[in-house]
């Protein structure tokens, strides 16, 4: 199966790979996994006092589409408010990367990771 140029670009030059301190109260960590393909994704956001995401990092073990999906969303999320980031839909990710139907679940995984990271951050703030 052929990957789109955008997927290959993100796969070969992934943006924002790395780790933020999960114990930092301004950092939200989202972890999700897809049993069918064994992919594991960690997405982290650092949120400033205005509720804007100022940094995002990811680490993904999986196929090219899963890596590209998470790389893409870290780019998108920087500068967004939490509410804006929560609105990111897997369909936009799949469209941007021109994912074939069999790889749509990779974009679903990225959307789930965003939600999990936001939930984790909000749970920390609520404490």
């Amino acid at each position: 199966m052929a990957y789109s140029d955008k997927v290959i670009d993100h796969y070969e030059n992934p943006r924002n790979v790395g780790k933020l301190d999960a114990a930092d109260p301004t950092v939200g960590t989202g972890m999700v996994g897809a049993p069918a393909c064994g992919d594991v994704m960690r997405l982290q956001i650092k949120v400033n006092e205005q509720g804007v995401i100022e940094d995002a990092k990811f680490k993904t073990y999986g196929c090219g589409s899963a890596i590209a999906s998470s790389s893409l969303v870290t780019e998108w999320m920087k500068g967004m408010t939490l509410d804006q980031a929560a609105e990111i839909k897997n369909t936009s990710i799949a469209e941007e990367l021109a994912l074939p139907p069999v790889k749509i679940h990779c974009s679903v995984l990225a959307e789930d990771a965003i939600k999990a990271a936001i939930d984790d951050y909000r749970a920390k703030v609520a404490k």
Partner: protein
Amino acid sequence: MDFRQNYFELFGLPVSFAVEQVVLQQRYQELQKSLHPDRHAAASSQQQRMALQYATYVNEGLATLKSPLKRAGYLLQLAGLDVRSEANTTKDVNFLMQQMEWREALQEANAATDPFAVLNSVRDEVGQARDGLYQRFVSAWQQGDADSLAQAHECHRQLQFMHKLLDEVDAMEERLDD
């Protein structure tokens, strides 16, 4: 030929996670014999087509009951759970962290002084975790109530990661052997 039978009924086995592999193979050979094309040479083309479909059904049944992972998924399916959905993700943080650690260890194994030692220790740890998950799967599935079945479903999700990891360990070992 009855396509409505589940695979356990097809092979005359009790619906259970424990399957006697010797018995399974014997029943498979019996079913195969009855399906041999020579026995249907005189049959109409429709009957021959049916026989072919039935053979596929029998082969799928064998593959499902032979593999512990597929068998576990099939038991959940029989209990009415959807095990194939793409929305079927796992969010168990401790489990996923452990997965990440194993993957990192594998990634770093290439640069290790003794990569085989790293592979062996990951294989042992993952293998133990897998065995534990199968035990938990069986007892949860045997309980059979909705909560227990949800637990069994989560065990099955996690088992898929374990098998995937073990496959990767084997693949890495083969590359290192070259």
